């Protein structure tokens, strides 16, 4: 009843918001949250394709589950790195981490 395009456009909006967040946010944790948003958009896409277009094999649905798994793992590892940076340098803004340049 709900055409698939609705979901796809929703996903595109979420994805673009996440992209915007990655580009503007200074805090590493907020950037990570924006990436999570993008991954949510990706998962919506996959699930929508699976249940609408391809319900016989529903690979997309499985893909969606794995995307969530990966995203969770990503948060864990990234937060550890952010924490480590903060403990060593008392910063959590990515634009202050610019020891290496040129």
């Amino acid at each position, binding site marked *: 009843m709900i055409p698939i395009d609705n979901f796809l456009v929703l996903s595109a909006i979420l*994805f673009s918001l*996440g992209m915007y967040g*990655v580009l503007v946010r200074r805090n*590493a944790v907020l*950037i*990570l949250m924006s*990436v999570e948003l*993008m*991954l949510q*958009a*990706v998962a919506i*896409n*996959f699930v929508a*394709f699976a249940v609408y*277009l*391809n319900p016989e*094999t529903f*690979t*997309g649905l*499985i*893909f969606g589950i*794995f*995307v969530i798994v*990966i995203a969770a*793992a*990503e948060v864990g*590892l*990234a937060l550890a*790195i*952010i924490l*480590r*940076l903060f403990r*060593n*340098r008392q910063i959590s803004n*990515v634009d202050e*981490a*610019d*020891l*290496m*340049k*040129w």
Partner: protein
Amino acid sequence: MSTSLEWGLLAPEFLLAGWAAFIILIDLFWGGLGKERLGWLAAIGVVAAGGLSLIWVNDAKQFGELADINDYTTLFRVLFTGIGATICILSARYVRDRLLNPGEYYALILLAIVGANGMAAAHELLTAYISLELLSFSLYALTAYAKFDLRSNEGGLKYMLLGAFSSAIFLYGIGLIYGTTGSTQYAVIGEVLSGDTSDIEWGMYLGLALMIGGLGFKVAAVPFHMYTPDAYEGAPIPITALISALAKAAGFAFFLKLFAVAFLPLIDDWRYFIAGLSVATMALGNLVAIQQRNVKRLLAYSSIGQVGYLLLGIAALSQDAASALVLHMIGYVVTNLAAFTCVILYYNWTGKEEIEEYKGLAERAPYVALCLTIALFSLAGMPLFAGFATKFILFQAAADQDLLWLAAVAAFFSFVSLYYYLILIREMYLGEPEEKTRFQTPWLEYTALTVLIAGVFLIGLYPKPVFNVVEDATATIFVSEELESGEDLVGVP
């Protein structure tokens, strides 16, 4: 649907994962073993896994609907385990002197190899993607592994966040391709795309562009390369070598297989975009390298330049080009590992990594200076060495596909690259060392270095046997395409 799975086909991966756990446990319960021997122990496991994968030489099996175990997989398994074993050996002293938690360090390297193997074996996007993440995650953690080194933290952070960002983009592309073609199997995608695609072209091309972008990040193509120099500089040096060899080789194993099987029907549509990326990558990598003052950054930019040459093989995709690409990659991996071995040795001795600090190396360690010179000349594509032979075959394959202009650009930039390699060589030979004393000789590392240099000469002077192996390997990805789609796609113009 319910296929019985032959788990035995994944024996090398199981061995690696099990060995990783074993290493952690050994480190935990047998402190007396010593950090250095732990590295050698890890190397033994990796070599065993590589040996195990030789069971399937000239075999063609499938693991469910997910992965092929054929010559292509075997070649890359051997290559990846070779890289891994070298890195473990080279890490031994470095880890002993400078890092905490050695057990986990080697475990992560072993798991990274599992991921790389998965990328080469998969013939389906989900498996390939998860393997890619396994490799990437291990590398993120390893890049930040020097916990109290600020540059390592920063490199890890940049690598991790940008990696996650580009993964999201890549996944969005996969989603669109899945939506338009209805499958994640390479062969099915290829079949759908070789039919009429006028109704789905919007989603298909957007998905393709996003996938190229995501893969471009993994192999460090311009403009997705920005993390590379920072991650290279920040990471512990053996890990820099690992990223430059394993991540690139695995990325291209995936890239090549995916594009050769799934996207070959669209080659005329994406060829010039890849060619454009290739030119940008060669230009930026080689020209910016001239300005570098740090050896790791220099090698980072030089490896970006090399990615440009490898992309040329994708742009000219055909069976020859694929063989040429894989051959060049093997040559690049061997040469680059040789160069990094020298850099690691020097770092272990002195803790220095700026180019100007290499002055007088030729007097203090003539063998290392000679080997580094050979490796750099090979990277610059001088005759006698691997870089020339493989580049020559690659350029010839590109010229064969009417990309002569691209081959000419590549030849020009490989000339430019000589300039910055000579800067380093000049420092080593013409600079005055601060002290005159010779360094002591670490025999194991010297042996590894000698083997790698011998490989550089072997590929440079007599590439035929290696080429034959590579050709058998790449034939499998093209032949399977032919069988499944029922039409001759080899030599598509």
